[in-house]
């Protein structure tokens, strides 16, 4: 719906470039972004703040512009709230217990809290265990981000803020990847198939292909699917491994003595030293196990399963089921023959 001019005048909204009230957008069209730490941090921060503020506000009022992206982004809320609540479940009631019970419950509670933190960290960090090697081996960056400019319906006749930016990944959808963003812009002197040429080279399909994009697209799809699968499965196993690590006894010493009042002299040093020692001892204990039988080897099995899922996932991702020949398609077409296109 178009806003009547009268309304804009009434609200003193002007579309002139000099007006400070005009919303400055970073992007005017869908834009491919570089996958680096800065961009990831910026996107993460943007999504995080929106997930806690704008999107819930829109969603809870039933805004007609609420969409699936916002719903998925809001998935951060249960993660954060759930983590905090899970820590609370094991700690909040302890103060009501008798002294000795409280002491025991505190130890368990702190370990569980540490487990929750380790779970979140391991789950997120471990994804790169798969995506990074795949990127290096195939050239396909499955995490490649882009900014999507989204045009919304105005909420009211006075609403002029109808553009929003969403951060997606190029290969977020395997059925509708944003191939278009990967083509070079001829007008800017870029090679149109530059990206695809690079991938084709990495995958050993040869250089100077006539239609490298058509050759590599099926392969990219395959890489993306396999990588996503490996990333998903292995990240949960790494997360479980991290929780197992957090459950080791040496952490009790760290949590008993550690202080987080880093503004006091020497506290940061002591806490860090204590953390490193507890981490080392816990890792040893986790790996070597305790007691007899399966208990002695369960840590190794757990770690092995996580590492194996990652390694197998990477190997599977770079091993193509239908790798095309290096021959150019045109070279197998005989000009004198007649062909029927089905």
């Amino acid at each position, binding site marked *: 719906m178009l806003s009547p001019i009268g309304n804009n005048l009434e609200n003193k909204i002007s579309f002139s470039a000099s007006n400070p009230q005009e919303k400055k957008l970073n992007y005017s069209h869908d834009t491919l972004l570089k996958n680096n730490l800065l961009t990831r941090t910026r996107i993460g921060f943007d999504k995080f703040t929106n997930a806690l503020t704008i999107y819930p506000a829109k969603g809870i009022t039933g805004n007609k512009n*609420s969409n699936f992206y916002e719903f998925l982004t809001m998935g951060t809320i249960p993660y954060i709230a759930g983590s905090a609540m899970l820590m609370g479940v094991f700690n909040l009631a302890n103060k*009501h217990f008798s002294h000795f019970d409280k002491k025991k419950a505190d130890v368990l509670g702190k370990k569980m809290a540490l487990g929750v933190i380790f779970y979140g960290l391991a789950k997120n960090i471990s994804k790169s265990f798969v995506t990074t090697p795949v990127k290096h081996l195939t050239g396909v960056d499955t995490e490649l981000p882009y900014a999507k400019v989204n045009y919304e319906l105005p909420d009211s006749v006075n609403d002029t803020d109808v553009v929003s930016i969403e951060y997606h990944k190029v290969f977020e959808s395997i059925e509708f990847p944003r191939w278009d963003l990967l083509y070079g812009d001829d007008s800017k002197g870029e090679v149109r198939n530059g990206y695809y040429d690079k991938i084709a080279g990495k995958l050993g399909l040869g250089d100077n292909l006539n239609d490298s994009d058509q050759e590599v697209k099926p392969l990219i799809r395959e890489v993306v*699917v396999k990588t996503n699968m490996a990333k998903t499965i292995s990240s949960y196993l790494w997360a479980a491994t991290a929780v197992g690590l957090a459950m080791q006894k040496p952490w009790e010493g760290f949590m008993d003595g550690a202080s987080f009042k880093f503004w006091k002299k020497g506290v940061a040093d002591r806490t860090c030293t204590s953390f490193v020692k507890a981490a080392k001892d816990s890792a040893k204990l986790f790996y070597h196990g305790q007691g007899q039988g399966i208990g002695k080897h369960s840590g190794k099995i757990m770690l092995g399963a996580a590492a194996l899922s990652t390694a197998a996932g990477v190997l599977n991702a770079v091993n193509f089921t239908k790798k095309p020949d290096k021959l150019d398609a045109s070279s197998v077409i005989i000009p004198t023959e007649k062909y029927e296109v089905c």
Partner: protein
Amino acid sequence: MKIDNIKNSTTSYKGFFPTLREQPQERENPYALRDDLIKPLPPEGHLVRTNLFNAPKHLVDGWAYDLKSLKKGFNGTANDHELGKLNTIGLVTGGTALAAYLATRKQVASSKAMEFVGIGSFLASMAIWPVIAIQIPTKLIHGFNVRQHYKDSMDREKLFFNDPQYLPWDLYSDEQINKIGNYMGVPQDMNNRRDYIQNKMKKIATQDNTLWMLSAGFAVPVMSALICNQAEQPVKNLCAYFRTEENKKILSKALEAKCDAEGSDMYKRLDSLLALNNGQPLTSGVVNEISDIITYDSNPIVNQKLRAELANKLTSSNSILNPEDGGKILKILEKNLTTKIDSKEAVQALVPRLEELSEWLEQGGFINKELGKGDFVKLNGLLSKKLLEKLSVHNSGLAEGEKISADTVLEAVNNRINSKNAVNKFRATRPAMVLNEQTQEMLRSLVKELVSVDHKSSIVKDYIFKELSAAPETTLANVANSVNEDVFKALGIPWKEMDKARSNRDLMNQLLRSNMDRIAADKNEFETVMTQLADIAKRMNQFDKIVSKRGNRTFFEQTINRVLNPTALALENLGFADTAEAFAGLRPDSEKGILKAFAANRLMSIKSSIFRLINNLDMHRRIATMTNVGNLTGDELPREIKEEIVELSKRTQVHAHRSDYAIKFFFNGNTHPDYTDMSDIEIKDGKVVNRYYKAGTASYRDVSADPTLYRGTMQLMYADEMLAKTNSILGQKLSQEIARYRHDCFLYFGDEWHFVKPESFLTDIAETGLCEKGKQNYHKPKYRRSSNKFKYLMTGISMDDMAMRYAKQKHNAKSWMKLFGGIGVGILGATIAVQFFFGRTPKPLEQVKHD
């Protein structure tokens, strides 16, 4: 074209649009349906309806789809929908792996099971929360299923309202939409009614989805924790059931157990050692190696006997010299002579040639003969004699100053240090006993017996551990826990008061005392509570199958005999009588004795606690009714001491600990009671109305220094007969058991052995029966010494300890439940309440009619 024609043509057209290559056949109706045109397949999407009957199939189909997605993901052919399913698979896989890891670190079955319940409850909560907090309330408030699933034409199941920008409304019929509209109260005559209802549904769904995201993080952990909290006891019960069923079969397995003794580590190590030393002399080194291999680590006493007997059997005091030892003797001799004599020529002249020495040994009969200590002395003498003969020959041609003295040679030959002596060295290195076939066979048989009995014995120990050990979730521990809970339910002490007193022993004692008096004062209540306590005590009857009072009557006892006796016999036949005794002898520290004593002691510990309670309540009732109270009536004791006896008895029964029994109590009684008042004590509402005794008025004193008070207390607690009503409630068996318990307490806690004043011993009721009035001829009882452990077990847990433990556990559980139950209810309430405000959609403007 007329408008009507177009209308007609579009209504008859079922597909979408013709392709560009198609040419309309009729100019008037270019979009008319033709069978020969390319057109999309008819849509097959539909709403998914699940009910009780098709839910299992739906579930299984879902799993099958997930697995198929996994396979396609592995092959790189999965689509977006299938990739989405992998997240669930990863979550379940990771969760299960974590639960499995944590379970391996837990000791007992229920704790292991709870790890899986934990992850299961978390996943279940994630699935259930949106259903109970959002789907059902929305259905009730707004009349439609906000979590409606549908299958698209590709058979992919999705949530209808997942993406508010893509809602396949065509799957809802007009009838369905109108029905929902009616439920919402949308006016029937509204323009674009379907659009309005759809917008309203979409708005509610968007709000609900947001609410789901906002609430799930808070609700799921709490819900999961609450599920775990409620599931814990059923899981424990289930594990206890399986464990009991499993235990029933364990003992039979011990008898039938087959053990591959020859495959055991011990046998293999012995075998290698025997092969290495086959036919060799059994030197102390070899014997030690054998002793290190053949062990019975499960029982140090057996091991000690075994080691001693092995050393005894394998060691001989005699030795045998081999012909080749001559060369070695000469080497040592030459070395020893060199240290004493400087002249090399002289040494060479003295040291015999090998043939010479062999001849001497042959002639002396020292070769291939068992040589005792005396033989070695003779051998040394022979060697000395022969060397002296050679010395005289050597000295004969020398000047007086160059001659070598006989003492020098004798010193070199008879070196005091054995190891340096040319002859004695071979006493240790050439033992007469060799590792022959017979010895090897004996050792092999010994190992087979030990490995076999260890295997069987470990099964018996496993059984007894699972039944009775002081570990969580053994059968006995489960019974003890249920006893704790049920005792305080039976006593009917208000929870509020127990909760207040849970951390204060004085308050708890006061509470218990007042409640025991309350129960004792009322006949009906006393009988009701006693009946419940008797029922609780009878739960221990299930352990009668393990330990019998006399002889080896139970299957457990018979099994121990059948496992250990054959081994003991076999060991005896092999010549290991002491080891056999250590296995199956009558001594309490034998393997058999330890197994039986362990079971008996564990049972005694729990039974004593329950019997103490019953005795306590009976005593309170006896005092309340002044029945069977021995010397509390009559004029034998002054009233002040009677009051003190009652006070000390009640105090002892409620809160005396094991240490109190050991030191014989301290009590704040009057050291100079009033002997002029010999009247009976006064009872009111079950309580003694003290005329003299006042708590805290006098300083504490050692009760054992006051024989009258101590004796009277012991008699009231343990010797005065129990009430007939109590006995009838308890039944014959339990009554006899408790009578025996009281009898033992009276003897072992109350006898003179523990009493400070030597002449202040009590009547030996073993000989005189219960202490009866007028029969106060004290005489020294038989010597009754008992271990501290025995007394420790007989004391049982004190009532206040039991109460405080129970109150603390219950308080913790209630506090937790109050906090998180409250949070859970709060989140659920808020989530439901807010849905009443959802879906407020402005009605469309009334259509303005223009005439």
